[in-house]
């Protein structure tokens, strides 16, 4: 009789304990983005910080994703009020310079901030190698499912989101992602041509 009771109690408790154990392996704050693997949301945003050297784009120019087909695009959302953005700033600029001669385009998107604060921040950091654009009303940020800064998206030549990174990104990680995309496009040179008729 007691054995029967005990086994019923165990049978009842095991699924509950298993559920809780499974819950412990999950981060409740993590929002799994549905974007990787999908077509990247398009944008056409105005440059407010030009960037440097060969990567520079004039202030006021429009950077549109549609016009960067065939290129790997690294889209980095940042803000002058964002502390973690300080950590990744040098890494991003270094990576941008490293791929200056390759079909790779780095774009910074200022998130919930004003242009003047953004340019001041860039000046304090000793410059930013690549151009940054303004995102009025955070429309592009919402299109990319953003919920904080910094967040970085890697978009392939066909305009698909390949990777989303939350938090400060490292040069090594960027290099890994970009190199694999460049290698893939080198192996299959027909890929950019496929984009033509679309």
């Amino acid at each position, binding site marked *: 009789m007691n054995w029967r009771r005990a086994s019923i109690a165990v049978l009842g408790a095991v699924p509950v304990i298993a559920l809780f154990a499974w819950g412990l392996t999950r981060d409740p704050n993590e*929002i*799994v*983005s*549905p*974007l990787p693997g*999908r077509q990247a*949301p398009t944008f056409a945003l105005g440059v407010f910080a030009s960037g440097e050297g060969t990567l520079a784009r004039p202030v006021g120019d429009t950077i549109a994703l549609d016009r960067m087909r065939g290129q790997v695009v690294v889209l980095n959302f940042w803000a002058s009020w964002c502390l973690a953005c300080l950590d990744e700033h040098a890494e991003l600029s270094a990576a941008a310079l490293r791929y200056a001669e390759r079909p790779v385009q780095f774009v910074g998107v200022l998130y*919930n901030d004003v242009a003047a604060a953004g340019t001041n921040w860039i000046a304090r950091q000793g410059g930013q190698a690549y151009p940054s654009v303004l995102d009025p*009303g*955070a*429309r592009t*940020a*919402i*299109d*990319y*499912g*953003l*919920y*904080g800064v910094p967040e970085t998206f890697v978009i392939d030549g066909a305009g698909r989101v390949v990777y989303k990174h939350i938090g400060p990104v490292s040069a090594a990680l960027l290099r890994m992602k970009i190199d694999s995309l460049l290698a893939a496009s080198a192996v299959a040179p027909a890929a950019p041509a496929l984009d033509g008729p679309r």
Partner: protein
Amino acid sequence: MSRVALGIVAVAAMLLAAPVARAQSAAQTAKDAASQAPAAVRPPPGGTISAADSVLEARTSALASTLRCPVCQGLSIQDSPSELAQQMRSVVRDHLAAGKTDREVRAYFISKYGEWILLSPQPYGFNLLVYALPVFLLVGGLGFVVMKVRSWTAVSANGVAAEGAAAAIAGQASEPEQGTASPVD
């Protein structure tokens, strides 16, 4: 006895049904507002802007109340004062003003943030567990209580009240047949 049990079940069902009915009527109101809204909100010539505006505003806040604010803890974008929530609310308003349905706007946010963005999970598949389990547990619990009460009262009605009650108080007379024959211990 069975009348008492029926009464308990009926009260529980009413308690359970009330919030569901309220939620349904709220959803209906939102739906009505949605169906009355014009395809695209434009100031009617010579008419008042405020009527169309208030309908749009009502739809926006009804829809925004169902979407989770990404930078808050358990708040909807309707209730959050954060900048991102306000911007998301204006995205909702613009999409509705452009003639999109509530479902389309919700689908837009799901395609960006995943189903996480919905404050209450969509009732299908695995999510159904969230809706079914409380009802199941409540009904099962009530059934258990009714069963126990019946077995206890059945013991005392059998005319062996002293033994049965003593055993029941001791918490050992879960099985009345055995309890009446010879108390455990």
